[in-house]
């Protein structure tokens, strides 16, 4: 029977990152991917703190030459076009984090998995993991592919199966919904959507409605990904099907209408229900969860791929630090879990603030006082490992947001659509 050092469930960014790094360090790795690539996937905007991992994997240069849209920052605007904040990563971050990419995941994930293959990983695709038997010294993995069944042993298993959360579900592990309400996203790709000028053409645009938000992600020269996220019930009440719900909300926002005025739909509308969750434990004796398999959080800050890459790297580092095939000790498991929770915890706090209209008012009026603007920029870029000063300023932002609910420090935000003036501005 084949024996690998590490078996990885899932060939998305988390699996490819962990696989590439482990194989490059001399481990034998097999990645089991269910789907044939390229395939559609949501989560198209990267943030700069994932760059380090892509560089370490050795795939950065290839990404540079693959025609992905360069993302130099993010902008937030209100649904009525009144209120606008544009952030440039380079204003507060070093050259390694000054920009990143917007990616069509079909292409991006293929490049990463292919890179894992060239780094020395074996790939089984398309193949499903059927069962895993855990013993004291290894895991016995059985997979099924169109060619039939295969069984192999592995010292460790990394679960990078995304929201399928293979191990979490199979072992029936406890998880939390993180106190976030159930949301639904409806999205599609468009041609000819409005583009910012100059270097801001690759910015992600977040349009904040009173409840919920739009994303606009320029993927390449022509294609723009547009999606709306709203409470499930609320969105369902906007129309009988995905398309009517989407346009109902677009028409209610002058900013979204403006940006989609000449846009042409490519392909179909998709939907995703977003149940945020996080497993209490992200590692066990012989397994580690990475990416969405460990937890999925609201996508507003484009954290998904970055968390996948960073947790993939952390999983690889954890295994590489193990003395010859030993079980992960309780201490190692706890440390890994704590790091994953810390990473997602920062985003969770920001997500709470984003959905709170008072806190968001502070966000949309970042005074230069106490470097609040810089702090927000670093958070938007995905800096989750905080220096002491940075931590203080993040705390200050939260305190200001709390104060805002009681006394108005930043002017409250107005989402009302201005009444359309009947007299045109043109003579």
């Amino acid at each position: 029977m084949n024996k690998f050092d590490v078996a990885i469930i899932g060939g998305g960014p988390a699996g490819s990152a962990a696989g590439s790094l482990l194989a490059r360090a001399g481990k034998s790795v097999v990645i089991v991917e269910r789907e044939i690539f390229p395939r559609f996937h949501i989560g198209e905007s990267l943030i700069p703190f994932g760059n380090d991992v892509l560089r370490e994997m050795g795939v950065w240069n290839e990404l540079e030459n693959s025609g992905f849209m360069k993302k130099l920052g993010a902008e937030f605007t209100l649904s009525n076009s009144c209120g606008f904040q544009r952030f440039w990563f380079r204003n507060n971050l070093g050259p390694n984090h000054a920009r990143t990419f917007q990616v069509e995941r079909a292409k991006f994930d293929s490049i990463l998995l292919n890179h894992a293959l060239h780094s020395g990983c074996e790939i089984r695709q398309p193949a499903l993991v059927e069962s895993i038997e855990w013993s004291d010294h290894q895991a016995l993995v059985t997979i099924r592919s169109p060619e039939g069944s295969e069984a192999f042993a592995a010292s460790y298993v990394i679960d990078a199966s995304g929201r399928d959360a293979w191990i979490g579900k199979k072992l029936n592990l406890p998880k939390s919904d993180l106190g976030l309400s159930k949301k639904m996203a409806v999205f599609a790709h468009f041609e000819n959507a409005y583009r910012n000028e100059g270097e801001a053409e690759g910015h992600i645009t977040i349009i904040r409605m009173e409840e919920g938000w739009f994303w606009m992600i320029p993927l390449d020269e022509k294609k723009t990904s547009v999606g709306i996220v709203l409470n499930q019930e609320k969105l369902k009440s906007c129309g009988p099907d995905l398309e009517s719900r989407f346009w109902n909300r677009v028409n209610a926002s002058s900013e979204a209408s403006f940006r989609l005025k000449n846009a042409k739909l490519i392909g179909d509308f998709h939907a995703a229900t977003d149940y945020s969750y996080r497993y209490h434990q992200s590692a066990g004796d012989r397994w580690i969860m990475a990416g969405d398999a460990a937890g999925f959080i609201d996508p507003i800050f484009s954290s998904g791929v970055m968390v996948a890459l960073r947790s993939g790297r952390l999983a690889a580092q954890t295994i590489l630090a193990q003395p010859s095939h030993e079980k992960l000790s309780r201490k190692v498991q706890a440390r890994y879990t704590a790091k994953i929770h810390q990473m997602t915890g920062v985003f969770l706090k920001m997500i709470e603030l984003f959905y709170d209209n008072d806190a968001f008012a502070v966000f949309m009026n970042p005074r230069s006082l106490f470097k609040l603007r810089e702090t927000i920029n670093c958070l938007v870029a995905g800096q989750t490992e905080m220096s002491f000063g940075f931590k203080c300023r993040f705390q200050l932002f939260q305190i200001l947001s709390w104060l805002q609910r009681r006394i108005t420090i930043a002017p409250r935000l107005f989402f009302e659509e201005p009444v359309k003036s009947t007299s045109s501005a043109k003579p």
Partner: protein
Amino acid sequence: MANVSIDELKQLLMENCMLNIPLEEIKEDLPLFGPDGLGLDSIDALQITVALEKKYKATIPNPDIARQVLQNLGSLREWLLRQTA
């Protein structure tokens, strides 16, 4: 309106407000009001509002919207672009 440049908005500021810093130092994300920004006051706000009506035929409907629109030159420019689009 095809385009509104930050420079032409700076010009508008200069013509209508008492500025105490050189034009080059006004970045598009510098807050126009308040002690940590350009330090404009309510008279300046009124002047700008009138100037916008005159030059671009763009009316800011109420003070709450004005606060959001006139936050900085970037927000003003984006809003103006959409008024005649």
